[in-house]
């Protein structure tokens, strides 16, 4: 019964999406208002169907209805409630259903919020989104059907979700964040398709598009960070990024998405780089599909891989179809996007933006090659190769360093860059900050060239970021004499937001550079009372205990930590044994301070009461996460409408009132 209801909702979604896509396209060609209205309704119907389908699946999971195959696959009577809720996205079929839900919500949001000002494009935008929706519902209805009835006999209990996913609450938020990022890229993509079909790319297209691109990009930022954090807190190897194919897969669209955001700025200010922006958005979308394909087809091996399934070929077909459509559409229509005439100089703000874009794209290709090379090598030569960290570090670190430099140089340069004297002054002024950062790094004991270079670049960029970010506030102060900085910020929150994001990037960047260079570790077998020493810490093993929980057995060690003769508390690293998993899964215990982390992992528990303990100290790890939080906060600032946009959104009379001196406008 549950199966039929779920399948019914999926079918409804498929029909709504299929009809909506066709109708939206026709309505776009004919510029039919009635057609657009109906398309919008079908878009909302699609969203309702997806919400319904997910609701049914959650109901089946919570009621342990093992007659639904997905529940039989990931459900278990002993799994705690909250984990049962998250198990919707813990396995292949469920994750695609969840994907459908998010797409449905995005489509509903696009249909609702883009009603005004975007009418010219909306029919095509919705048609494209619904076509994507039709593909996903087709997947859910056919090869990845989570609602398929379980073959008889229906089991009385299930194995529960993958233990790794049960180990930490971050697993509840990391996948949804990534999906919100991945799926959200469909909206700017659909808008880009619409712009190409219309053959025009005006301001009414660009402003909303940047916002629709900003939202998924920042979800992706948060999702990638949470993944790193989860890996750090759960996997127990002391790192947060392994250049794993699936990590890379989420990184690729992030790189091009950010490149597109930057080229959008140039487009807004100078009317150039239009084709660039559109192409980058399209590549971003294709990369999200590629990433999904890599994760779900089983062609790469990684912690993230779902099991081999027939979904792979179907996804590859979809990727091929989308790629072909994008290339053909671009070649047919790109010449309609004429950039405004300009005589640009390379040493100018827009030149820096262009260089920044090229760097992002090179970085994307570097990572793409490293990710796909093993697959290529295996299919061509039949050998298993693994492209490891050395490749990525050697190739990507210089590009990252160059981006860091550009983050300082770009915003310092004036638009147009016509006056060489002005340019020189802009580039000389931050130099003392760069020198100061370099000296500081030397004083703190940094000797490796990459860290010193990054420090100098970061000092330069920090100075420029602070200078540029605070400029509107200072300017306002001078003009108005004592008006609050908040008012100044609200005139153009996106400008400040952009520099706040840059500040976050700087923090994360420096933290990554320092933490990956100065990690130290020690490992030893300890009996009760033994002490392990590392970097000023003394860790004394007090004893281990065995805790039986409904769904796992936990071996937990009690480690007393002290440093400089002071008690620093007790840490409990543990090893968890899940009944249906052979390898025990460790949960590290971390002591975080502003300066560094102490990270303890239990390697094994001996029969004689001894333990194998590994301790790692890593400086500045917490700042990686703090930097990302700053980035996301900056993005939120960017999403606040600017004063001009607020005025535009107001009815005429109100706007006039607001603009009068008494209203406190300009």
């Amino acid at each position, binding site marked *: 019964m549950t199966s039929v209801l779920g399948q019914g909702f999926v079918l409804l979604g498929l029909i709504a999406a299929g009809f909506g896509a066709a109708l939206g396209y026709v309505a776009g060609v004919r510029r039919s208002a009635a057609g657009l209205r109906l398309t919008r309704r079908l878009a909302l119907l699609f969203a309702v169907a997806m919400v319904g389908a997910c609701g049914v699946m959650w109901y089946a999971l919570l009621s342990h209805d093992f007659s639904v195959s997905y529940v039989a696959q990931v459900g278990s009577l002993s799994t705690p409630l909250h984990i049962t809720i998250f198990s919707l996205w813990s396995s292949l079929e469920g994750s695609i259903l969840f994907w459908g839900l998010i797409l449905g919500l995005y489509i509903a949001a696009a249909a609702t919020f883009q009603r005004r000002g975007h009418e010219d494009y909306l029919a095509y935008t919705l048609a494209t989104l619904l076509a994507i929706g039709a593909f996903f519902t087709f997947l859910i209805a056919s090869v990845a059907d989570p609602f398929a009835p379980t*073959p008889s006999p229906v089991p009385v209990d299930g194995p529960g979700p993958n233990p790794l996913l049960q180990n930490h609450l971050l697993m509840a938020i990391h996948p949804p964040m990534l999906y919100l990022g991945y799926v959200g890229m469909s909206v700017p993509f659909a808008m880009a398709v619409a712009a190409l079909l219309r053959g025009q790319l005006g301001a009414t297209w660009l402003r909303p598009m940047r916002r629709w691109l900003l939202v998924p990009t920042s979800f992706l930022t948060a999702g990638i960070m949470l993944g790193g954090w989860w890996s750090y807190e759960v996997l127990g190897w002391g790192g947060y990024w392994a250049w794993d194919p699936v990590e890379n897969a989420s990184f690729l669209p992030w790189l091009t998405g950010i490149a597109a955001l930057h080229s959008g700025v140039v487009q807004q200010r100078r009317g150039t780089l239009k084709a660039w922006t559109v192409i980058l958005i399209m590549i971003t979308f294709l990369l999200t599909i590629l990433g999904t394909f890599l994760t779900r087809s089983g062609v790469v091996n990684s912690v993230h891989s779902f099991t081999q399934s027939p979904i792979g070929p179907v996804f*590859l077909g979809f990727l091929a179809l989308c790629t*072909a459509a994008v290339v053909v559409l671009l070649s047919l229509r790109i010449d309609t996007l004429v950039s405004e005439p300009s005589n640009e100089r390379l040493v100018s703000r827009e030149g820096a933006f262009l260089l920044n874009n090229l760097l992002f794209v090179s970085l994307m290709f570097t990572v793409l090659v490293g990710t796909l090379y093993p697959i290529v090598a295996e299919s061509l030569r039949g050998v298993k190769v693994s492209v490891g960290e050395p490749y990525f570090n050697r190739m990507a670190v210089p590009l990252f360093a160059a981006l860091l430099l550009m983050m300082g140089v770009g915003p310092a340069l004036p638009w147009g860059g016509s006056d060489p004297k002005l340019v020189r002054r802009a580039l000389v002024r931050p130099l003392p900050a760069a020198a100061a950062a370099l000296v500081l790094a030397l004083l703190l004991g940094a000797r490796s060239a990459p860290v010193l270079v990054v420090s100098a670049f970061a000092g330069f960029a920090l100075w420029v970021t602070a200078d540029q970010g605070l400029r509107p506030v200072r300017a306002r102060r001078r003009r108005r004499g004592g008006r609050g900085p908040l008012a100044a910020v609200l005139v153009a929150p996106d400008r400040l937001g952009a520099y706040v994001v840059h500040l976050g990037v700087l923090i994360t960047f420096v933290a990554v550079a320092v933490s990956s260079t100065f990690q130290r570790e020690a490992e030893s077998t300890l009996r009760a009372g033994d002490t392990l020493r590392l970097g000023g810490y003394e860790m004394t093993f007090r004893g281990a205990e065995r805790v039986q929980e409904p769904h796992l057995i936990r071996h937990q060690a009690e480690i007393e930590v002290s440093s400089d003769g002071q008690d620093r508390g007790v840490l409990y690293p543990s090893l968890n044994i899940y009944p249906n998993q052979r390898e025990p899964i460790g949960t590290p215990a971390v002591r975080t301070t502003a300066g560094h982390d102490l990270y303890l992992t239990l390697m094994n528990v001996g029969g004689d009461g001894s333990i194998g303990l590994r301790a790692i100290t890593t400086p500045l790890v917490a700042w990686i996460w703090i930097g990302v939080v700053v980035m996301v906060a900056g993005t939120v600032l960017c999403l606040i409408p600017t004063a001009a946009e607020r005025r535009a959104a107001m009815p005429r009379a109100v706007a006039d009132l607001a603009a009068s001196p008494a209203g406190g406008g300009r």
Partner: protein
Amino acid sequence: MNRRVLLFGFGISLPLLVLLGFAFQHDPQIVESPLIGRPAPDFRLADLDGNIVDLAELRGRPVIINFWATYCPPCIVEHPLLMAGARRWQGEIHFLGVIFQDDPDLIAQFNAEYGRWGPSLIDADGGVAIAYGVYGPPETFFIGRDGVIVDKAIGAVSRDQLLDVANRMLAQPAPATG
């Protein structure tokens, strides 16, 4: 029509797509078991009723060992097939089930309800599963008359594979010494 975009776009994307298509020919998760062609690791295990089964004593007749559990849907899928196989080759092939990390009570309950095709051996410390390199249930090992592993199936065994391998094993000459 902008030819440059067309050529450049397909020039980059087509080879990539073709290569990804090729990648399907390899399943990174299937690694040919190094055990095929080697003597099956011996074991002595008790079944649910306490009867001891010693693999070495079964030599001379083919053996099919199936690692399974009640929580695994493919195990349930292949259950009727194994029932049919055990009936068909009764007295010709030994069918042994090894419980893979499951509660013996649940196994007994399952057997009572749906029938059993062979003894359900208790591999309490997982030692046998480790010796056979079992990654997850179900995995099925086909052992010839001479005690050498002939073939292996990961996931629910198919009717065709069962028929084919069983006939191959039965066609093997009996070893000189029992």
